[in-house]
């Protein structure tokens, strides 16, 4: 088993972490899947989900990837993969700038809490989500929420698209450079669309 260091220096991973299987994607980026998820790659993880949700935090509107913002890639992914979006409230102005009004708006901590309820019908009322993809929250807050879901929402799979390793997610990148991140986000978007 390869040991990947969590993004947060002291965020020592527990026994159930995204480390079960290491896959290689473009530029040797390690994509890390938790036990049982490893056999399935990212794109598959998203494509096979019946009711995925993409949860976008405010940092997605701040972080540059190449000449666009991280948010732009995420919205492209949502559109091509037909994934519902819940943005945290402070992300909304950036969505409005992009004329994107389809997102549900809910604070991250409330989303996390509701995802632990297997009966929650989702913000779109279409039934429980089976995959929650996180991106753009403060790293440490995303980590605690993913931990909450790992322990208390066994019915849902989790993924993060930040360029930092989150051991509590079912799928996470390792800590990767902006260039590798871009390549991989593009690859995922393509794969989802196929």
């Amino acid at each position, binding site marked *: 088993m390869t040991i990947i260091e969590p993004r947060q*220096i002291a965020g020592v991973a527990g026994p159930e972490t995204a480390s079960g299987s290491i896959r290689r994607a473009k530029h040797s980026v390690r994509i890390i899947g938790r036990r049982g998820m490893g056999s399935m790659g990212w794109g598959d993880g998203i494509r096979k989900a019946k009711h995925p949700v993409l949860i976008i935090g405010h940092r997605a509107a701040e972080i540059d990837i190449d000449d666009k913002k991280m948010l732009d890639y995420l919205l492209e992914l949502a559109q091509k993969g037909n994934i519902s979006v819940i943005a945290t409230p*402070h992300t*909304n102005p950036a969505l409005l700038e992009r004329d994107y009004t389809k997102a549900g708006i809910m604070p991250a901590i409330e989303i996390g809490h509701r995802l632990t309820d297997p009966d929650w019908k989702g913000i779109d009322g279409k039934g429980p989500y089976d995959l929650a993809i996180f991106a753009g929250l403060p790293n440490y807050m995303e980590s605690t929420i993913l931990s909450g879901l790992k322990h208390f929402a066994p019915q849902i799979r989790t993924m993060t698209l930040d360029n930092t390793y989150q051991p509590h997610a079912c799928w996470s990148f390792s*800590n990767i450079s902006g260039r590798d991140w871009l390549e991989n986000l593009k690859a995922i978007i393509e794969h989802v669309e196929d």
Partner: protein
Amino acid sequence: MTDKGINLKIRELQSDIGKIKDLEISIGKFRQDNWTELQGPTPFPSMTALRNWDKKLLARYQPFYLPFSDHCDLCTYGKCDLTGNKRGACGINMSTQQSRTYLLAACIGAATHTSHARELVTHTIQKFGSDHLLDTGGLAVGVEAPTIRLVCGIKPETLGDLETVLDYLENQLTQLLSATHTGQEGNHLDFESKVLHAGMIDQVGMEVADIAQISVFGFPKADPDAPLVELGMGVVDTKKPVILVIGHNVLPAINIIDYLKDKRLSDEVEVTGICCTAIDATRYSPKAKIIGPMSWQLRYIRSGIPDVIVVDEQCIRCDSLIEAERIRAPFIATSEKNCLGLTDRTRDPADEIVADLVSGKAPGVLILDPDKVGEVAVRTACAVAPERKKSGTLLPSQEIIDYAKICTQSNMCLVCQRACPNELNIPESIKAAGQGNFRKLIDIYDECAGCARCEQVCPQEIPLYTMIVSAAAQKMREETFKIRTGRGAIQDTEIRKVGGPIVLGDIPGVVAFVGCSNYPKGGQEVAEMCMEFAKRRYIVCTSGCSAMSAGMYRNEEGKTAYEMYPGSFEAGGIVNVGPCVANAHISGAAVKIASIFGRRPLRGNYEEIADYVHNRVGAVGVAWGAMSQKAASIMSGFWRLGIPVVVGPHGTKYRRMLLGRADREQDWYVHDRRTGEKVYVGPVPEHLFFAAETKEEAMVMIAKLCMRPNDTVKGRATKLTHYIDLHRKLFGTIPDDIHLFVRTAMDVPVTMKGEITRVLEERGWKETIIPDPTLLSHQIIKKEL
């Protein structure tokens, strides 16, 4: 638990000489014959006395656990892997373990305040006698100790009376702590109930501490015009000898100030402070200066300005002695709780101690008698200052550049950024510094929490933190602010004026910025939030580190929050109550509203008062940088009164939130006291413990959490106006849950009528009634026909 002393109750006694019925004799500390209020149902409540109330809150506000560790390692069965709510060797599961951990934190916090209170009471009794009368505000404060009256059912009059209260607190804390032993409590909600109990105990402990010190030291007594004092690193006259006091127990600082006065040296030596000791020092003498909150500790020491460092207790960096040695500043520890391995010199003559500190023979000493600290600290500072001031401790520009050049970030090192709690882009700033551009390093100074973790991990051993501080030297010199020092309690007369407007909703809310300085983006956010809510005519309270951060920012007019807004408990006031222990005055104000305005019996009547506060008093606590175990217990005390608390994103590391579910209609019914009917009131307040991702999210949530079932239509319209306006301003749209907060058409703010009516129609909104709300069925006053 009874009052201290002998308590003899005789229900009925038949003897040769006659019959005695219902005789009660008390021999002890309390003569409560001057308090006619009847004793309530729960004086000196045990751990389970208020369990039913707790369960009502916890049914609505469910814990959402966010484990910080997958393991438990508290006993030798462990480590146990609790992943996925598995059970450990003792049978505990993950949710119960998280609540247990929170209880441990709350016990640590409450024990810290209570032991602080014990020290103050013991010391003040030694000095002033146990019969010394308590006085927190003269005639303006009739209800001198609302929390003690509420919880203990007694009315303390003297310092000695406080000892009885402390006995009770220490007893309860021992019991609470014992519940965390392996194989004790096994249910997470019962742990949560005990957390709330610890919080309540903590509030009593804080009240004891602050009313004791206010009563004897001449601190401002419920004074809205408490003096404006100086704040920031730039206010220090560095030509004079400078003493730094750090911590929360003001006794050594008072002795320093007294010694200076005695020797007529007050204008010759600077007394500067960090954390709550600093606030209390300025309550004692407005000449003392506040440097800043806890996160200023290391930067101030590394600046080299302090000539002598005196630490007492709580929130002091454990490496403060090492840091003092780095800048060659003699060091004095003064608390049994924080001895730092130093030799106890309490009984040595002052001359010898001073000589050893000045010569460097002893880099630090332990002096456990606060009355001895003043002389040693002052004489040492005066002796070492001239030599110390000859050389600086900050790095010259060229050294910063040279260090920056050995950074190996080009190899994707970046461990400094990964170690930084706020993920600040240190590598980028170091890269720029290597090219002679310090701008980015200076920017980091603003958002830096002062932890020095970056420096600890750097494989190149680059002194990153000193570089940040050195680059920002000019900025530090420009830190010259004002803060209104801690005023203490809220006057009864103020409560009479604002009680009605608060309960009816005309004043949109009371927002209290409390707690530590582990901010996600620096302290300026606290100042901005304070000003925004004061401008909107909320009542804003501040305390502790947050009170300092609130003052460390100037608006466009060049004024700090305390210069812009009055210090009175009124709409648009910014009320600094004082240090951490003064938080009791904020919750105490809510309790006083129930008692003075609402005329609810206070004495030993916790449940009814909490029910009143929860349903009627639109108060919200904000602990934007909450970090400590004390913050954990302070927040828990607010929760038990049904007052919600908002924390910053780091607050998720407290391991659990208490969140309501606005989408579950069944959770939001109350009894109408007048009719006994169950009435839907909407999710007000929606959460009890909520972590916001950003300042903007916090502000909108604060406005939302101020709504209460009891709001009149005018009050609800005012509160909705602020909620909707902030939402629109900060998120660009009107909120999509307005329909949950509109009970009648009259609730709709007139200026937003068209827009909101459309939303209500879309949502199939139906009118409901406004009840006289209570969660307690025994509060229903409907007469049987």
